């Protein structure tokens, strides 16, 4: 009995000694870094902008919240990320805390020069989450991007991350990419990463000004814009709109989108909105050369029919299906062609080949970029219109009778 007491007493004593180097930190001593922006520095290699949340101004409560700005941005320079972060402590009263960082913004300039020097710090730091989203600030500095205020979501970061999630599933021209995905693409021979582009639109003078938020139509706002294609850790090109959608289609990230098809000679007459989309990529080999087969299957409903069309006729539906298939196939083929032009395998075809035939891959991987450019890709789309909304035939159908 006595022994147990002595042992437990010792344990407790030892533990209290340990607590000295334990990282106890009060919430009020932390500066929650919500987003970080990387720009090219003048003297030092990087200029890092820290978007720090001001909790009292975000959360509504009894303490009269919502008066000031929800975020504060501090900028510091350094040759490495750590150096910049340590330099920032000269300006910030609280300890920088990265566990809730949800966004990394990289300026286009830095992205073109190569962002490899940033990535290890993000990957290594125990506080930092590799599920953090990464975006490229297009036509603006990363500082401007992280300084911008938004009016619907109090925290600009939330706007960006939520927006990416929504647009990925509703439109499919962007796809969420986090640090993990990016690094996976970076290290893989048979895959190159894509990153979302974000732009600050409008009057840049108004960035980060509270009075801009007093307007229903703010002068500056953030918008997801295009997909940045990387090659060897460097930004090499942009995919926009349908081409970006083609990429997202192949990556099997599209859930819903809108496909316009012509009818009766009228352009954009019928819109089909898929509700479920599934992409399967497979490889087969012919004469020792890989051929990629992409099978896309989607189901959806007619969301608009702006022409005289008899939607009760199965043959018409069949025809619509065919046209939708053609449209999707064209979009996908164009993105593939563009990617082949810049020799960047953003679809991960190389990985598929690797998995399907490891022996062959050993031969191919040294020269995969060129192989990819000449790769034969078959796209097969199966589209089904499952329903027509709460109307069968459009009013056009009755009008012309």
């Amino acid at each position: 009995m006595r022994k147990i007491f002595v042992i437990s007493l010792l344990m407790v004593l030892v533990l209290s000694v340990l607590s000295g180097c334990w990282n106890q930190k009060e919430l009020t001593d932390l500066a929650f870094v919500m987003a970080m922006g990387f720009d090219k520095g003048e003297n030092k290699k990087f200029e890092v902008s820290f978007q720090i949340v001001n909790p009292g101004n975000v959360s509504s409560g009894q303490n009269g919240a919502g008066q000031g700005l929800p975020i504060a941005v501090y900028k510091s320079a350094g040759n490495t990320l750590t150096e910049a972060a340590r330099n920032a402590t000269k300006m910030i009263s609280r300890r920088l805390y990265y566990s809730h960082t949800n966004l990394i913004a990289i300026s286009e300039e830095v992205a073109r020069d190569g962002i490899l020097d940033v990535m290890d710090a993000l990957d290594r730091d125990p506080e930092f989450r590799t599920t953090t989203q990464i975006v490229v600030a297009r036509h603006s500095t990363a500082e401007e991007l992280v300084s911008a205020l938004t009016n619907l979501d109090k925290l600009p970061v939330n706007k960006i991350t939520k927006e990416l999630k929504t647009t990925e599933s509703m439109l499919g021209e962007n796809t969420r990419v986090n640090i993990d995905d990016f690094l996976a693409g970076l290290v893989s021979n048979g895959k190159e990463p894509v990153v979302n582009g974000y732009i600050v639109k409008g009057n840049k003078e108004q960035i980060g000004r509270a009075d801009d938020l007093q307007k229903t139509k703010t002068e500056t706002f953030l918008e997801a814009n295009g997909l940045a294609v990387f090659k060897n850790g460097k930004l090499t090109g942009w995919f926009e709109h349908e081409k970006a959608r083609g990429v997202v289609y192949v990556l099997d990230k599209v859930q819903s989108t809108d496909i316009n098809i012509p009818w009766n000679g009228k352009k954009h007459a019928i819109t089909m909105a898929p509700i479920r989309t599934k992409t399967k990529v497979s490889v087969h080999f012919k004469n020792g050369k890989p051929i990629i087969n992409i099978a896309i299957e989607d189901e959806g409903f007619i969301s608009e029919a702006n022409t005289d069309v008899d939607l009760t006729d199965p043959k018409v539906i069949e025809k619509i299906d065919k046209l939708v298939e053609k449209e999707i196939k064209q979009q996908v083929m164009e993105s593939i062609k563009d990617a082949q032009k810049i020799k960047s395998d953003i679809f991960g075809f190389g990985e598929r080949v690797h998995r399907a035939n490891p022996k062959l891959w050993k031969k191919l991987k040294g020269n995969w970029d060129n192989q990819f450019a000449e790769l034969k890709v078959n796209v097969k789309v199966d589209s089904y219109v499952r329903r027509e909304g709460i109307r069968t035939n459009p009013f056009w159908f009755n009008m012309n009778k």
Partner: protein
Amino acid sequence: MPILSKLLKKKQKQRKNDNYRQQQDPQKPENLPILREYKDNISRIKGEFGNSNDIVIREIVHCKHRGALVYVDGLVDSRAISDFILESFNENDIDTDGMDYFQFMTEKAVALGSNEVIHDWNQVYDMLLSGNTIIFLEGYNKAISGETKGWEKRAITEPSTQLSIRGPKDSFTETLRTNTALLRRRIKSPNLWLESMRIGTVSQTDIAIMYIKGIANEKIVKEVKDRLKRINIDSISSSGYIEQLIEDQSWTTFPTTYHSERPDTVTSQLLEGRVAIIVDGTPFVITAPALFIQFFQAADDYYSRFDISTGIRLLRILAFIIALLGPAVYIAGTTFHQEMIPTTMAIAIAAQRENVPFPAFVEALIMEVTFEILREAGLRLPRAVGQAVSIVGALVIGQAAVQAGFVSPVMVIVVSITAIANFSTPVFAMAIAARLIRFVLMGLATILGFYGIMLGLMFMSIHLCSLRSFGIPYMMPIAPFNMRNQQDIFVRFPIWAMKYRPMFISKGNMVRSGENQKPGPPKQGDDNQSSKGES
């Protein structure tokens, strides 16, 4: 602690040397015989009781014989005395010559339920103080003791601490006999055995041990009796005394005996093979052995359907965990593991804590202690003031503290949830254990975060597993695991599926119900059954 346990060990050794309990208490007068002269006896009683005026002495003359009645006012039924004792002394025309007058009075005249002839003074005091009337007759060195017990009793009322919605509404009272009767009425079997003893050298408190012969484990019954016999203490004020004197382990916050004021609960425990200890003067009956999970089983669990009671029991266990961990998790979360809180919530908490001048631990401690004070005060307050205090308390904890910026609203939420969760444990003894351990865990969370909480919980589990209640592992049947007895642990099986009594506690007669107890409509083609039902 080590010093204290050392001291205790020494004492225990001494006690062993004393060869258990001394039957004779030094404070008690020597065992003297009753004197022939009744006046001497009376003066002796007067002297012994210091002329206390509730000792009523009434001299009588009957058929030339003289004598005296002695009883304690308040302990006796005065109607019984006047109707059955004094009445018989009024018949003066009996010829008593040539017969044994004493014998006659004992057998015929004193018309009471039970008469006894006593010879020595110890018996006199015993009987007198139990509410009997002692009749001294001149010329006899013995006395008659007539049973005239009858003191003020509290009526059987609804239980005040262990309420039930559907169950019976009676509860034990302070009177031992009423309590045993409540149990007898529920188990009409000769196998329900009752053994009684007196504990307390001065108080001489009546104690009854009840168990069902053939269901209860004989070894445990013997152990209970042995432990009770070992008690050598001046008085037993409540069953709480007994509980603390017969526990297996004193160094624990967890109760290792169960107590209930509900006769139905005790009945079901007797039927599971447990032993009930009923103490005169306490409306709480102790049952042993007690298992950890038993403190989460409420009477209503068995009165409502099994799916509902299973859900509610799981909820109760969850509430216990909340009561145990609530503030500790808050402290660990806000001072160590901010990354584990969802971003929006972390920011919301940070916003609220922005102006709080204390670290999370101090904040939590202030609130918890304030609440404990309020709760304790609420228990002891006169009813009339109660409401005023609860209003002040609600204002102090709820609003003023938050508005003054001393504590954050989240903390108020945590404290209130913890407090409410704590009240959902059916037995107070277990709830109070959680209350105490909560503070330890809060301290650990402050020093080590979740690691500390886990450490604390580990120690707690080890401790729980080391506990025994009358030799039965406290965590039965979870650890050691027993498949057969899982029927009433986390999931309360339907009554027809609860076929077995708990292992070890009950021995020999393990099966409770017959085969095919599952109810259902009569099966087709099963004519026998349906015709039986009709006839």
